[in-house]
């Protein structure tokens, strides 16, 4: 994350302007650093993949300060300035690394000419399917054709015919006519996903992208190939013909699939989510995410969604429900079954509620096998949040069972259970046992526990509310409301405030999420006192994890997280605080 301060900077000259860039960076990245919307057009280069250099779109002119070959003395012009020896032909920006004194022209006649040529060649066999192509609107070929194309084709011969509508795998459809042979998908499968299934067959204009015989693109990262495809060759079967991308609103969010906390973008239109794609965060997920994480939003529209505040199965208002919950909690002998799916803000409220009602808190683990990339062993997004907010102090048992709670119910030590989004019947507490106690259920979807619950409080899914999660490396990451929740359902912390405040004989305050943060930063040592939800940076803030290093977390090494290395760096407090300072 602090690579730029470690690597030495050099000065290069881009279009007559001296720019400081890290040594060894390539020209595409260097030009991007200049800003002002300056870009070297490219197809095959991807910042997180190896350089292939086969699309030839990123041609730039390059020159080095001239030196005498014999003596090594700088050759000066009549003004005493060192002459620049321009290369006679353009060079590709992706495979040219910046070196001191290098001069680059990204907009000269020669460069424009070569881009126009490349574009014309790419369009020779292109089917011009744009009206029926899902990539239209986010297609690099479409964009660069507008910029560098000639508007008509000089190619009068017949275009190549290649396989269309090919099913590459369970989630990806391939249209070979649209493919520009950039090989990003091949490199991704090989280098990142570690499942080398794609390749080119045949030669010249007949080159065709295909799966190796007997294989299919079925790994859990296959949809990333769709994201990185610069054209419409690889398209998502799920999103196919659902909606044009220019109608979709993008909202920054966090994937809830596991404690990796992959940064995502939610694409929605008029309150309906159409797809979820990864958002670049070099400290968390690079530019990738799992396929399984992209379909989680479909639970929004499931039939068993809880949409009504109820007491004993009768619809009530939120205030009546909150009052009923308060009454049950005030009677004490309460157990809180919290959730690591709740946001940090909600866990903060649950902590207050547990404290004020004297509840014993248990949290259920959701552990499964990780894949070593972006799916960690802990399948909850916010276990660290429960620790940071003080809701729990020990990690939950590896086995998802609530034996202590079951004993307490049987012995009568617990009279009321406050359940957050868990199905107790699956955790060793049968329905007959639940009948002995009062149950307050907060959750998004109905389950057997919510059916027997005395008080049911519907809650919003991550796409429908604002909040934060703390991921495996103690990074606070923010998610925002993408779509409205079910009608009449309040954001969770508003309801929890209606329960928590009366428990302490306080007045219910009308809270904004920043107000919640104001309370949190005063109580939680890990949070910087000045920070607020609305001011959190997009890439998140790394917290001081030194208080939790003794805990035995389940995550093993994955794409951006190494538990051993993390322990070592977090144990050195000076360095950690320096990191927070630079990032905050």
């Amino acid at each position, binding site marked *: 994350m602090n690579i730029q301060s470690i690597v030495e900077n050099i000065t290069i000259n881009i279009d007559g302007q001296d720019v400081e860039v890290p040594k060894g960076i390539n020209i595409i990245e260097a030009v991007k650093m200049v800003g002002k919307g300056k870009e070297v057009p490219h197809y095959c280069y991807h910042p997180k993949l190896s350089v292939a250099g086969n699309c030839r779109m990123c041609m730039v002119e390059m020159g080095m300060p001239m030196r005498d070959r014999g003596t090594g003395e700088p050759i000066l012009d009549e003004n005493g300035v060192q002459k620049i020896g321009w290369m006679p032909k353009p060079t590709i920006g992706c495979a040219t690394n910046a070196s001191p004194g290098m001069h680059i022209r990204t907009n000269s006649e020669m460069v424009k000419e070569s881009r126009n040529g490349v574009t014309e060649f790419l369009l020779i066999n292109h089917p011009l399917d*744009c*009206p*029926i192509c899902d990539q239209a609107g986010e297609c690099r070929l479409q964009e660069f054709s507008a910029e560098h194309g000639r508007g008509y084709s000089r190619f009068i011969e017949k275009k*190549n*015919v290649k396989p269309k509508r090919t099913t590459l795998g369970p989630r990806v459809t391939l249209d070979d006519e649209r493919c520009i042979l950039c090989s990003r998908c091949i490199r991704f499968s090989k280098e990142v996903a570690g499942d080398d299934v794609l390749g080119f067959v045949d030669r010249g204009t*007949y080159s065709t992208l295909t799966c190796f015989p007997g294989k299919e693109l079925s790994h859990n990262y296959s949809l990333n190939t769709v994201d990185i495809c610069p054209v419409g060759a690889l398209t998502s079967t799920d999103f196919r*013909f*659902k909606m*044009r991308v220019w109608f979709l609103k993008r909202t920054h969010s966090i994937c809830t699939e596991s404690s990796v906390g992959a940064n995502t973008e939610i694409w929605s239109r008029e309150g309906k989510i159409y797809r979820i794609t990864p958002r670049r965060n070099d400290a968390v997920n690079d530019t990738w995410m799992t396929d399984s994480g992209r379909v989680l939003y479909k639970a929004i529209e499931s039939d068993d969604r809880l949409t009504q505040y109820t007491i004993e199965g009768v619809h009530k208002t939120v205030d009546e429900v909150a009052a009923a919950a308060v009454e049950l909690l005030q009677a004490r002998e309460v157990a809180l079954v919290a959730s690591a799916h709740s946001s940090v803000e909600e866990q903060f409220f649950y902590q207050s509620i547990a404290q004020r009602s004297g509840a014993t808190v248990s949290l259920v683990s959701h552990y499964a096998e990780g894949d070593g990339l972006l799916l960690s062993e802990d399948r909850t997004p916010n276990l660290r949040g429960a620790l940071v907010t003080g809701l729990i102090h020990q990690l939950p048992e590896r086995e998802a069972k609530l034996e202590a709670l079951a004993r307490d119910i049987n012995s009568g030590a617990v009279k009321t259970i406050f359940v957050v989004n868990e199905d107790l019947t699956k955790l060793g507490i049968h329905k007959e046992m639940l009948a002995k106690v009062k149950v307050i259920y907060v959750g998004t979807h109905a389950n057997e526990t919510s059916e027997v619950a005395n008080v049911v409080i519907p809650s919003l899914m991550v796409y429908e509310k604002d909040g934060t999660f703390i991921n495996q490396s103690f990074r606070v990451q923010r998610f925002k409301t993408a779509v409205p929740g079910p009608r009449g359902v309040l954001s969770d912390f508003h309801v929890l405030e209606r329960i928590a405040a009366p428990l302490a004989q306080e007045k219910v305050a009308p809270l904004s999420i920043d107000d919640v943060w104001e309370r949190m930063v005063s109580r939680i040592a890990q949070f910087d006192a000045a920070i607020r939800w609305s001011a959190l940076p997009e890439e998140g803030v790394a917290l001081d994890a030194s208080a939790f290093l003794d805990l035995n977390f389940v995550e093993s090494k994955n794409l951006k997280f190494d538990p051993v290395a993390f322990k070592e760096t977090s144990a050195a407090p000076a360095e950690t605080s320096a990191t927070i300072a630079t990032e905050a």
Partner: protein
Amino acid sequence: MAKTKVLERKPLSFAEKTFLPQIVTGLKTTFTSMLQKGVTLQYPEERPTIPDNYRGVPTLVKDPNGREKCVSCQLCEFVCPPKAIRITPGAIDTDAEPERAHVEKAPQEFDINMLRCIYCGLCQEVCPEEAIFLQDIFSLSGYSREEMINNKQKLYELGGTLPDKHFKWDKKKSAEAAGNAH
């Protein structure tokens, strides 16, 4: 304050005082119009001739082979200034319509809200498939709001068939059948 200058009105001549020249000029216009062919159109019974480039009610058309031209690219929906167009895109069922499978995409639903439409013609201009045309229907009425929303079926009824210069998709299909690949 500006000073107002009062002008003396010219006194009327004798002929003007009789009003006869004015009456005669007026009657001349009356009699000329009386003898000419009438210009009033007895609308609803009589209908005006509509020029070809008239911008009437937007409709969807089919090509001479009876093929649905719209591929639901949703550009008209995007460009429509009053947001009158609403399309639900969908895939063509390859098994049900194998002869149309190469087009891949067609609208499932296509609604134009004629209470919103401003007859600007941008949808016709933007259509890459020449599937939507503002034709000669200019008078539209209904008893309810729902009636004023033209659905896909109604739009094709209103649109009918128009000649096609390109037969783009037929060419594509024959190229696919010929298999230009080696």
